């Protein structure tokens, strides 16, 4: 039984922050969910997808991109169904057009936008602070700190959305999304509303002929009403004390702050915990500030609270100095250590000796240890494709990178990746650059999901402008990087159910691409030849579709439906010339090194090998042997032995 579906109010379960948001949606009786997957928020979509059986009335979709996902949720809200859209922080850039109109036109049923932010950018190409958007979208922001609040604030967000006729944002940083711990369940609704109804509302829904100006005014009025109500909403709380230096914080930073204060033995500091970070209530802030000598604002990334607090206090008599980003960095993640260190310097309070020693000695003790960078998974088709691209080009082309698992091609052994910014930066930047550079070839990468997200307009533009580039679509049939959500090219579900995928080739043909070739990445020789051929062609967009299912999904599939034969790849020591093609240039993690009396040798770790066969195809010495064994007891036969 999925614990998120339990109808046991008061029971404590183990849940991830993202799970808590799912549960909040369930308890709030949501009926529509849409998302474009993105770390750290991906598990919210997976959570709803896994609950389809228990909650069949909830429409759950992995949309093509965040713009579409946000529109969908708006549509459901206008049909009077509580709706939620989730995305990672950069998804907000894509959805922002929709959301800029959302406050103007308002909601019918509660409309909640969950943003998974990524301070420290451990899974992103940017760590932008999306909270700034609200200064012009006028969408209220709730910032839960704990797993419990992630659930409880989600429910509050639906209520506020309806009460103030505005979509409400729930901002959850990765360290909350991926915090896993105790969650106490609340009640599930007794009845659910399966179908909604659209009621015309031209005043709000038609932003024409001055209607937008009137709606702009209405949105601002809604925010003003909400602002006045904040003290009665109990979303913010004060931890009182008699000290003269007060702290204001929100989100997980509040927890870091409380731990840091305890560490520094500062037990007399009043703390205002902000649960709703936009708008702020001037009365609440000034009452807290009154009589304090200093206020220190503790928040991750930019000084969003600090900016508003200073602005609010300017209109009052209170002149308490407010410090925030003078003390704490505006970039990167915060944690207890960074906050404790900064406060120790600022307030002249020493850190406990153990903490100081640990940090100093760790620096010395770990100075020279090898880093552990990521790598493609064992059996990953992208590894094979990248190997072929590097061999075909000797890296003498410009590599237009993009967002997906293939960003790992920036790392050794491939190092074939010249830029990555946002979705579809590959073709997008390349096709403009190509208008102004000469004598250089360009290979652009794009994955299947990224291509559908926003790649199609870029490719159409490249075709129309006759950009001279080779586009490699790495079609692994899933949104693999974020945990295998279906992509428009997913043709068979993991359990074998046939789906109706988009025909990429047909689509490319119809937009005017003249050169389209499919390759099987595991056929290394064929792939190298295909890349060379595409590069030799003159002018226009040439597309290579490298088609092979994500290795992790393949591995799951064969666990569910085991094949009749098991294939083994082995390195014949006598033939192996230690040329390093498989061990270094392909860099497959299943190929291992060991030592005997004559020196080192390589072998394939059977438990790790996914049987993609790339190593055998690329071995220049025919040293890798393929054996097929029937899984029924009895016969083992060597099918092919290279001579």
């Amino acid at each position, binding site marked *: 039984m999925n614990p998120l579906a339990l109808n046991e109010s008061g029971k*404590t379960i183990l849940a991830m922050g993202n799970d808590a948001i799912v549960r909040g949606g369930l308890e709030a009786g949501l009926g529509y969910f849409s998302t474009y997957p993105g770390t750290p928020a991906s598990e919210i979509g997976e959570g709803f997808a896994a609950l389809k059986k228990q909650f069949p009335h909830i429409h759950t979709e992995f949309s093509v991109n965040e713009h579409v996902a946000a529109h969908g949720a708006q549509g459901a809200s206008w049909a009077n169904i509580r709706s939620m859209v989730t995305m990672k922080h950069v998804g907000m850039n894509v959805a922002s057009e929709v959301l800029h109109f959302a406050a103007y036109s308002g909601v019918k049923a509660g409309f909640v936008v969950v943003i998974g932010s990524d301070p420290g950018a451990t899974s992103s190409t940017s760590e932008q602070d999306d909270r700034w958007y609200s200064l012009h979208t006028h969408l209220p922001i709730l910032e839960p700190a704990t797993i419990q609040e992630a659930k409880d604030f989600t429910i509050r967000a639906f209520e506020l959305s309806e009460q103030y006729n505005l979509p409400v944002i729930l901002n959850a940083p990765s*360290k909350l999304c991926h*915090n*896993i*711990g105790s969650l106490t369940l609340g009640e599930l609704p007794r009845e659910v509303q399966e179908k909604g109804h659209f009621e015309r509302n031209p005043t709000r829904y038609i932003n024409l002929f001055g209607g937008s100006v009137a709606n702009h005014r209405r949105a601002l009025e809604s925010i003003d009403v909400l602002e006045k109500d904040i003290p009665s909403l109990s979303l913010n709380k004060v931890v009182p004390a008699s000290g003269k230096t007060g702290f204001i914080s929100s989100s997980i930073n509040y927890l870091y702050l409380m731990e840091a204060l305890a560490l520094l033995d500062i037990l007399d500091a009043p703390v205002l915990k902000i649960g709703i970070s936009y708008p702020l209530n001037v009365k609440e802030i000034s009452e807290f500030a009154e009589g304090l000598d200093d206020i220190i604002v503790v928040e991750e990334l930019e000084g969003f609270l600090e900016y508003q607090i200073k602005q609010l206090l300017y209109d009052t008599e209170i002149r308490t100095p407010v410090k925030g980003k003078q003390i704490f960095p505006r970039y990167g993640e915060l944690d207890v*250590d960074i906050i404790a260190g900064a406060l120790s310097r600022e307030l002249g309070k020493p850190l406990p000796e153990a903490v100081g020693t*640990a940090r100093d000695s760790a620096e010395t*003790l770990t100075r020279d240890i*090898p880093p*552990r960078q990521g790598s493609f998974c064992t059996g990953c088709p992208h590894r094979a494709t990248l190997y072929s691209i590097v061999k075909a080009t000797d890296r003498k082309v410009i590599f237009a990178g993009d967002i997906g698992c293939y960003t790992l091609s920036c790392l050794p052994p491939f190092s074939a990746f010249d830029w990555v910014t946002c979705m579809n930066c590959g073709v997008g930047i390349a096709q403009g650059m190509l208008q102004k550079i000469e004598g250089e070839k360009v290979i652009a990468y794009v994955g299947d999901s990224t291509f559908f997200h926003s790649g199609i307009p870029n490719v159409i533009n490249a075709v129309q402008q006759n950009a001279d580039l080779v586009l490699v679509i790495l079609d692994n049939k899933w949104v693999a990087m974020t945990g295998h959500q279906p992509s428009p090219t997913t043709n068979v579900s993991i359990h074998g159910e046939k789906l109706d995928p988009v025909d990429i080739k047909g689509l490319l043909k119809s937009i005017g691409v003249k050169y389209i070739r499919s390759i099987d990445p595991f056929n290394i020789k064929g792939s190298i030849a295909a890349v060379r051929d595409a590069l030799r062609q003159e002018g226009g967009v040439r597309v290579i579709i490298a088609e092979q299912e994500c290795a992790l999904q393949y591995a799951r599939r064969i666990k569910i439906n085991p094949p009749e034969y098991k294939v083994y790849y082995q390195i014949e020591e006598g033939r192996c010339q230690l040329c390093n093609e498989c061990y270094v240039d392909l860099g497959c993690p299943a190929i291992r090194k060991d030592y005997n009396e004559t020196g080192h040798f390589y072998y394939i770790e059977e438990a790790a090998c996914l049987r993609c066969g790339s190593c055998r195809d690329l071995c220049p010495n025919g040293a890798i042997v393929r054996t097929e064994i029937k899984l029924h007891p009895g016969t083992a036969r060597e099918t092919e032995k290279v001579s």
Partner: protein
Amino acid sequence: MIRYDILICGIGGQGAISLGTILKLAAIHEGLTVVGAERRGGAQREGVVTSNVRYRGLEKGEPFDERKMAVSGLIPAAGADMMISMEPLEALRHVQYLNKNSIVIINDFPLIPVSVRIGDSDYPDREEIYSRIRQVTRHVHIHNIEELSKSRFNSLKQVNTLSLGIAYAVGNMPISEESLLATVKNQFPDFEKNRAAFELGMETGRGAAR
């Protein structure tokens, strides 16, 4: 007040995350509050994986105090009461979380990073790794848990419960053996084998602190 912080580290696919899950579920079984963030981006891709396990609870009759009970998902520097590292180098990489009382359990089974494979750097000598960790804490327990699992169970599937057994024997976790075993029973198939592994782990932990 009850507080106990465990940092689990390893490489994607080694089971650091599921070990953390067992320790957290056991806490809920025990009636403690538990939190802890996971770093899971590197899973399956030879990346670093960590799981923070932070137990909090009130003693009988102790009043709730927000200033003491507020707990984030990340263990601060020198804050780990225990570290379970599934890999030697990763234990050293996370040494800043240790203090002189921390109990460290290391699986003596190196996994070679890509940077070493392509010849950009060397995997440090293991004795050097361990002696550096011993500069911080003397309570270091080193066992080749993979080997132990292979030799006793002819499989790597028992590595997690073996680690759990060792950790339970050498540390002072505020949870009962019964809560741990009940959780193992719920989470893993083949309970008898896992109970045997847990017991072997306890024996190993008690026996030889190298």
